[in-house]
């Protein structure tokens, strides 16, 4: 399984839409969709930082590891 991106779960908990997160973080809708679907190759610390700030969460809430 590997690294799982739980961005959709955190967004649902915060009741935040993709376009709102895009506005808050400055990351494009397309990139957020790719990230949400777990299709991104890698994630920058800077990206993780802005997402955590916008969603008021920890990196561990967004990313998890499953065997």
């Amino acid at each position: 399984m590997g690294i799982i991106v739980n961005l959709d779960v955190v967004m649902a908990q915060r009741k935040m839409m993709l376009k709102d997160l895009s506005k808050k973080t400055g990351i494009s809708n397309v990139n957020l969709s790719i990230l949400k679907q777990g299709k991104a190759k890698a994630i920058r610390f800077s990206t993780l930082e802005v997402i955590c700030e916008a969603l008021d969460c920890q990196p561990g809430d967004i990313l998890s590891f499953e065997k």
Partner: protein
Amino acid sequence: MKSKINYIGIAVVLIGLILVLKALGGAISLYWLIPVFSLSIFNIYQSAISDDKYARKVYNHRLNFMVSKSVETVHTEIEPDLLFDKVVEEIRKSKLRISYASRKERLVVISTPMSLRSWGERIYFEVVEKGKNTDLIIESIAPGQVISYGKNKENTKKLIQHIEDSFTI
């Protein structure tokens, strides 16, 4: 990467050159200049239609030897529409001129400016759905040129690298 040397094109251009030299050496007859003029007119036609999406059919025709191209494919698991949007976004960021873009056909055509090595290339991005996966086909074509002096290969390589790098978010 599929990039083959256009042997037929090179041969035809060399024969054309020999014919011109022969014609200039002796009495210049219209007979020798007919193939040269025909090729010139065909090249002007290829340049004129370059911004048209149907030009791809002309460039890829098996009898068209006056063209050089390079094709490369990226395999992804991203949904076709999302990949199309991503490609358009990345092209806009790179400030290349989009000649044609269709979400329905999942096709983007861009033009590169003229340089010392070419008159400008047409680059086609096509998103193709293949079962659960999606392929991005990048095709660089230098119309009216038998040899692109490595420009087509360079274009596809650079664009593939750019697209792959853009998946680091």
